[in-house]
């Protein structure tokens, strides 16, 4: 790990850089979701050109896409019933954005622009909005609910800058994450938000073992899966009967 960092610094120092630039690496490129998976973290690190004074580093983590329904509980005959009010088609199941300089002048604008292009633009409304602010309300609810689930974070995590040249960043993944490709994007921006240099890494998250076998076959071979479930159950029932007959003989 330390060797990797030194190698990066060496590469960086010997390369003829003239502009702002960023290079990066990650400590793991594969994450296995086993039955025992309980969340994990990814360490991202790298080097920057020395012009950090006027530039900031943005780090984004974008998970695989999934469609999301927003439901609202309404009371019908004294019972709270879920009603689907909005649908977001194919939005990132996980998204995190952080910046090295939390005092950046246009932080709010960057945040809104990113959320709009990744989330808000994919809204499909189901029920007729009750008032004019309904659309904004759907955005707010999506953001709030995703944040509560640990699937969205905007400028809450810290990007560590060491000696203006090196950076490190820790991505904490919750225990319930969708398998697929997680992209980690590093972007150097100036005070106006213009992109100066980019670097991208990706982490493959996949189910393994029992987890993979069951969820794959349940989805793709439902007939096999159904028969398999029944046979296993009957076999266990039979074994239990035999075992206890033998035990109490």
């Amino acid at each position, binding site marked *: 790990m330390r060797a990797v960092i030194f190698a990066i610094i060496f590469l960086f120092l010997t390369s003829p850089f003239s502009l702002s630039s960023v290079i990066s690496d990650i400590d793991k490129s594969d994450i296995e*979701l*086993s*039955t*025992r*998976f*309980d969340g994990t973290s990814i360490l991202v690190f790298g080097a920057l050109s020395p012009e950090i004074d006027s530039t900031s580093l943005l780090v984004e983590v974008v998970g695989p896409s*999934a*469609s*999301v*329904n*927003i*439901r*609202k*509980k309404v009371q019908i005959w*004294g*019972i*709270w*019933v*879920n009603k*689907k009010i909005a*649908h977001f088609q194919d939005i990132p*199941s996980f998204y995190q954005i952080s910046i090295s300089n939390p005092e950046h002048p246009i932080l709010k604008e960057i945040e809104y622009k990113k959320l709009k292009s990744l989330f808000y633009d994919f809204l499909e409304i189901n029920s007729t909005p009750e008032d004019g602010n309904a659309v904004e309300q759907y955005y707010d*609810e*999506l953001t*709030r*609910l*995703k944040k509560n*689930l640990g699937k969205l974070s905007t400028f809450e995590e810290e990007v560590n800058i060491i000696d203006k040249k090196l950076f490190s960043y820790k991505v904490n993944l919750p*225990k*319930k994450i969708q398998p697929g490709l997680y992209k980690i994007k590093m972007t150097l921006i100036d005070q106006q938000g213009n992109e100066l240099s980019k670097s991208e890494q990706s982490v493959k998250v996949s*189910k393994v073992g*029992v*987890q993979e076998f*069951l*969820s794959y076959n*349940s*989805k793709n071979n*439902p*007939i096999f*899966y*159904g*028969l*398999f*479930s*029944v046979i*296993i*159950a*009957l076999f*266990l*029932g*039979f074994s*239990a*009967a035999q075992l*206890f007959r033998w035990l*109490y003989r």
Partner: protein
Amino acid sequence: MQIFLPIADVPVDLFVLLILGAAVGFLSGVFGIGGGFLMTPLLILLGIPAAVAVATEANQIAASSFSGVLAHLKRRAVDFKMGNILVVGGLLGSAVGVEVFRIIKSYGQIELFVSLCYILFLGSIGTLMFLESLSTIQQSRKSANTFKHKKKHNWIHGLPFKTKFKSSNLYISAIPPVIIGFIIGILASIMGVGGGFILIPAMIYILGMPTKVVIGTSLYQIMFITAFTTFMHATQNKTVDLLLALILIVGGVLGAQLGARVTVKLKAEEIRILLAIIVLLVCLKLALDLMITPSDLFSITYGNE
């Protein structure tokens, strides 16, 4: 120890599940009930999605009823002809039930539907059980129980398609068993229960079967229906969590064996009241969850429903 369930898509504590399986298994050993009507709502209260709880519980009951059938086969206490007719009705009921389940699920209302079914169901069973045991306790104080089952010549005997059931020593129409089987099939597929507590009284009081073959025959039907229901849910709804089923089967087998062999110090009526109270508490919890104003009105679901 925390494990992640692949189909339910939730993390749960393995020991909590094993203890739950064993506790419900113990109760079924003591009372001779299947336990599905307790297990499914408890799984829902643990945070397992209702659709997965129902389908997976059907899978567990397939295991426990097969285990039970084997014991009754040894004693020749299964009326195969009656069992097979019940199975025919049951398969139809299960197919209809799974389709209804799929439609309601596609509207995103399966949690509500399953909850309402259970509130109705547990509420009435719990109340009946509670009242019955109360009156039994009062009766037993006065005199010995003189209840005796009489064979009646009722409307069942006026129906066509009569056939002979040798093991049950009956000559009745095949229509009532098909209808009873059908209802059990529906219950199994939308609630994840074996349905023994309806099937057994129906066999005794409606069909007039002798008690010695009732339990074996009911287990025989329940095994086929829950196995078929598991298969249908797996193919139509993709909601069978085999890992969850395995844990519940292991816990349930151990608990049931313990329950069947332990000598309970309490009187039968007193345990029945205890069971009635458990049933009513679960029912109350489900009802409150539907009626109390939720702390968060909004929620997220995934996928295209």
